């Protein structure tokens, strides 16, 4: 028996078992979620195959569908970083929605204050910077409370969501309200020159590029720099990191700032490319969906891009499910929940499946 196993490592499957496992398990989880959700649809009286056909058609079936998907994927990439980056340091931050709202708010305030006094590109950069700083500081607050006061960062960042939304509601109902816009309480509209344009020949705004670039930067930062190495070390074992002399406090604050700034930038994109003004429509669950994206991609910024596109497609198909299958718009939320639960369960299977198991040394 020992001889048979000694020969086994030459087997390509055995050599590649770790990466294969890392791809196979999330894929299997996704498949399981698809089967469970199919059963759920059948239970709700819709034909699951027709439902999946519609989701595919609405998400990836045509160029127009792809554009809808990518428009939704860009804020998701950024809000996902808000959970994924601190997660590498062992923090569970779910304040994505609040950071997005603060970013959007700061961008609109900057855009309305500067107006058209300066050249448009400079004002746009100022808006983006305002959003980045506002979103970043918002999450840094949760990180600082964690580091200096030991406050659970999951709960505090979640409370900060509600506080940010209340602040935005207060401002658009009161001091910032545009009296001429009667549909719903909103701020004044941004000057058209300040809006983010579309990629040539499409309806997709440049926000997609922001999202892609942010994910690539985040990947390089976490995987290829000493800063990222230090953060991952502290995430793996905080006492070892302290003994090694790593500045855990500064790392916590910096990583939280980076995560929050990504979500803040998502807020700026939403107001400057989609909403054009700030009102309650900014709170459209991109933050919470971003948490899901981060967990499904196992906090890897490059995988985030793919998962965000996938989830963007599912979000884009919400309308068609309602129109042609008579399913409520919450169907998409149920699907997200099932995917999330299946992916979490698949985490427990690492190293437990016989095909991927380490073979005995002798």
């Amino acid at each position: 028996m020992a001889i048979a196993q000694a020969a086994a490592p030459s087997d390509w499957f055995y050599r590649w078992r770790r990466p294969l496992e890392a791809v196979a398990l999330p894929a299997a989880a996704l498949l399981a979620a698809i089967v469970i959700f199919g059963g759920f649809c059948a239970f709700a009286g819709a034909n699951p195959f027709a439902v999946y056909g519609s989701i595919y058609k609405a998400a990836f079936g045509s160029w127009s569908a792809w554009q809808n998907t990518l428009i939704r994927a860009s804020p998701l990439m950024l809000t996902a970083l808000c959970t994924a980056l601190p997660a590498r340091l062992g923090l569970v931050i779910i304040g994505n929605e609040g950071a997005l709202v603060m970013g959007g708010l700061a961008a609109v305030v900057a855009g309305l204050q500067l107006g058209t006094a300066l050249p448009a590109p400079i004002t746009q950069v100022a808006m983006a910077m305002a959003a980045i700083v506002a979103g970043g500081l918002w999450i840094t607050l949760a990180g600082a409370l964690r580091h200096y006061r030991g406050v659970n960062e999951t709960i505090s960042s979640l409370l900060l969501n509600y506080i940010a939304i209340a602040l935005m509601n207060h401002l658009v109902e009161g001091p910032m309200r545009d009296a001429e816009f009667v549909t719903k309480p909103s701020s004044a509209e941004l000057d058209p020159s300040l809006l983010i344009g579309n990629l040539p020949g499409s309806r997709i705004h440049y926000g997609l590029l922001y999202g892609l670039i942010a994910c690539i930067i985040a990947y390089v930062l976490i995987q290829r720099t000493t800063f990222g190495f230090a953060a991952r070390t502290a995430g793996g074992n905080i006492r070892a990191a302290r003994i090694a002399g790593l500045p855990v406090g500064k790392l916590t604050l910096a990583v939280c700032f980076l995560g929050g700034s990504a979500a803040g930038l998502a807020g700026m994109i939403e107001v400057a490319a989609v909403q054009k003004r700030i009102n309650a429509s900014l709170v459209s669950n991109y933050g919470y969906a971003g948490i899901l994206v981060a967990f499904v991609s196992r906090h890897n910024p490059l995988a985030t891009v793919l998962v965000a596109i996938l989830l963007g497609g599912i979000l884009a198909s919400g309308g068609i499910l309602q129109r042609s299958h008579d399913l409520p718009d919450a169907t998409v939320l149920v699907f997200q929940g099932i995917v999330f639960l299946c992916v979490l369960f698949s985490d427990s299977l690492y190293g437990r499946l016989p095909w991927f198991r380490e073979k005995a040394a002798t």
Partner: protein
Amino acid sequence: MATEALGWWGVPLGILAGTLRGSAPFLFVSLGECLTEKSGKINLGLEGTLLMGAMSAYGVSYLTQDAVGSFWAPWLGVLAAGFAGMTLGTIHGWLAQQPRVNDVAVGIAMIIFGSGLAFFLGKPFIQPQASQLFTFEFGAWSSNPAVQSALKVSPLFLMGVAIAPIMQWFFRSTRWGLYIRAVGDSPQAALAMGISTFKVRMLSIVAGSFFAGIGGACLSLYFPGVWTERISSGQGLMAVALVIFARWSPLQCLWASLLFGGAQAIGPAFQSVGIDAYYYLFNAAPYILTLVIMVITCSPQRTLIGAPGALGKDE
């Protein structure tokens, strides 16, 4: 609004009324979370459980009110809410105890799943009017309609007030209470006593979710007494912070719930006397209060007094 006749007295009266009404869901969810956390696991998903409970209670009350009459229908709803909570609790309890699965992450997933399911199944119940629970009219002595409406107290609230000391006694003086505390403080010691950690945690999580489901029934069948998708607005999560503030003591959960219910009533109370300039900021009061309380009570150096030893650890 009748409160206007009272002038400025409307504000404290409004806060009192809001406390009596708004603290019931906090009370049930925090007692459920307290029970869960005593066994060493966190259930953040109670936000989803709360919504699912609110939806089930309202739906069952609406569907059965013709068959069993408008007195018993809401009670069936309360029961349904509890069972809906237990179902979600079973999923959480099983999944959160798998190896390498983080209970906080499962909680976030359960928030998404539970609220999605509640919105999905609850779509048909947004418009119709379901029978509400009866209330005790403790304000009948007063001729003032504002006082009368303020002192309408739900039997569910009184039940919650009664459960808090019972749970305190349960933890302190019963064999099962000891089992739960042992599992929560030191799973190894519990194992040595011959207790199944998995079973005790499972039962604690399921029972805690039962309470949280009933907390949802308080929302939809008592106050505000409607079913909408915005009905809970984070109360299930505030309850988690509330349990930390209450130092994992059921009796203190009661006082903390009253405090939170009162904080929630500040905005509407000021609005009822005509001050609505800061309505949204006042509405943020419970969240700010929670945050401030956590900043004051937590410390980076030591674990909190009363915290179950195994809480937040992978064992």
